[in-house]
């Protein structure tokens, strides 16, 4: 190695040599950690994920029924916070903190689940449209454009009525949001594929005899991962918000399963008697959406340093 023979005092050469070897992902990780807001946001989200998993096995009190007696005190409805339980109880004397935990699970399930479906649909259709072009592109682009003009919430509401008969399950909500939300992802991936297919490394891959599937999934997809991850990160809060909208309107996951949206709705109607009921779910919802948005901002800056803010 030529580098080893150079005067050891000239360490700066060595350093630059090491720098050049860092991959895009290591580089991005370094930049992401330097973004304090994104760092804090990811800690918050990790905590939320832990809470969501824990709520599968354990909540302080049942989320679907009143604890009745806590430390020898009978619990009534609208029990104020910090008196007997941490966040008080709601209109059915159920523990708000337990319901908040389960609500976190519902929100994260909907957010992540939707993005899994969106990525599966959007990436495949976007890659096909952008790489093959021609008639395939025309059909997919037309569908994207039709969806683009229709408000997602209205379509989802009609789907809830027509397909789920007004009582959607979580899986149905995930599908309803994904069906109306895959177009952004498809549009992004299509654009990436359109520009990447003209680049030299794709030409080289084709020239060296790579099959079409290999080119699409082995060369074009990995190179568009950065924007894809950013888009998915911004898609999660949108889906969570959407589920909260549906639940707030009374057309989300049916009770007694708590969703932050339906808890906020309950609290809103009880605002004059017990204003604290509405605070916990709305604050949790806002913090979570904010955390995902900060993380998305951080990821965008980290993965695409050339892009201007």
């Amino acid at each position, binding site marked *: 190695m030529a580098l080893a023979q150079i005067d050891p005092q000239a360490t700066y050469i060595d350093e630059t040599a090491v720098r050049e070897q860092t991959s895009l992902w290591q580089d991005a990780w370094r930049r992401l950690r330097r973004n304090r807001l994104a760092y804090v946001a990811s800690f918050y989200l990790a905590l939320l994920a832990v809470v969501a998993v824990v709520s599968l096995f354990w909540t302080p009190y049942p989320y679907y029924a009143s604890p009745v007696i806590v430390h020898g005190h009978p619990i009534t409805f609208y029990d104020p916070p910090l008196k007997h339980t941490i966040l008080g109880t709601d209109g059915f004397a159920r523990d708000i903190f337990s319901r908040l935990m389960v609500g976190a699970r519902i929100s994260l399930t909907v957010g992540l689940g939707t993005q899994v479906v969106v990525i599966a649909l959007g990436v495949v259709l976007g890659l096909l449209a952008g790489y093959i072009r021609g008639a395939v592109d025309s059909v997919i682009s037309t569908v994207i454009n039709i969806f683009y*003009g229709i*408000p997602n919430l209205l379509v989802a*509401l009609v789907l809830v009525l027509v397909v789920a008969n007004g009582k959607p399950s979580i899986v149905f909500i995930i599908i309803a949001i994904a069906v109306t939300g895959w177009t952004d992802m498809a549009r992004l991936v299509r654009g990436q594929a359109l520009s990447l297919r003209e680049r030299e490394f794709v030409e080289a891959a084709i020239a060296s005899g790579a099959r079409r599937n290999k080119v699409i999934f082995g060369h074009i997809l990995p190179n568009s991962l950065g924007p894809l991850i950013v888009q998915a990160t911004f898609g999660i809060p949108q889906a969570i918000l959407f589920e909260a909208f549906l639940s707030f*309107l009374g057309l989300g996951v049916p009770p007694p399963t708590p969703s932050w949206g339906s808890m906020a709705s309950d609290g809103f109607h009880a605002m004059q008697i017990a204003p604290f009921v509405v605070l916990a779910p*709305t604050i949790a919802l806002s913090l979570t959406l904010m955390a995902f948005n900060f993380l998305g*901002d951080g990821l965008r800056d980290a993965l695409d340093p050339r892009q201007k803010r």
Partner: protein
Amino acid sequence: MVSRGALVYIGQRTVLILFTAVAVSSIVFLAIHRIPGDALLNERHPDPTAEAELLHHYHLDLPLYRQYTLFVTNLVFHGDFGESLVNRGEQLTPLLLREATVSLEIGLIALIFTIGVGVLLGVFAAIRQNTWVDYTLTTTSVIGYSMPNFVIATFLVLVFSKLMYTWTNGSFYVPEGWDGTYGLLSQIPVPAFALGFPYASIVARLTRASMLEVIRQDYIRTAEAKGLKERVVIIRHALRNALIPVITILGPLTIGIITGGVVIENVFNIPGLGKEFVTSIITRDYNIVIGVFTVYAVLIGMANLGVDLVYTVLDPRIRY
């Protein structure tokens, strides 16, 4: 200003909007009629002749294709959406038109607020870049678009009805929604703010970014070198060009405000289209669901047309 080409363009677009409306209503009509059971299933019918009469009245005794042709001919030639299934005898067309104007009222005020506040804050953040003004505004905007509009609405109602009730003497406080069809002047600001605030944050971010780009260009320096006042340079020279990227999100913005209206109208009990939409889904008044969805399609088409016309005003390079 309005050329013949523009008029032809507007005519074509209007025809397209009407065509879309019929297509959308057909899709919803057919989708809803494949739900098992008819719309009157929830009721008890002790008298079979009365039930048959009722079914006949709503043409529900006819085969589906006859129902459909009747629906489309009534819609196209008479502008008639039929009758409400829950409130018997209530004609839907006047009802929907009235509700559309209520939604338009609150939506337009929210839109004006969104653009006004968003652009103002964006410009401020841009000309005071990297000062505390800028940092405060950019952080607020992330918080703004992370907060769902019903959360903002909740906090506003909490503030005005609970914490500041004696101080404001009850103004802006909406106990049971609007009295009358079109709210009072004191009732409009809170829902309009809640509806527009998330989008105002987005507009502010966009304005700031494009403003930062524009004010570094040569013609701005020329304008400053001529000795024009900063205010004149910003408003007359920079803002006009900085607004073009902002205009591009007007389409999604309008759709967002229409969607947000569904939630906000339910929060504040505003008797508009969004409230009717959710109520009709819950009470299964299928005729209203079809009608509301169609009116929404028309509104969105008109909003998009309006946005395209605004382009031509701001950017003379675009002609139709």
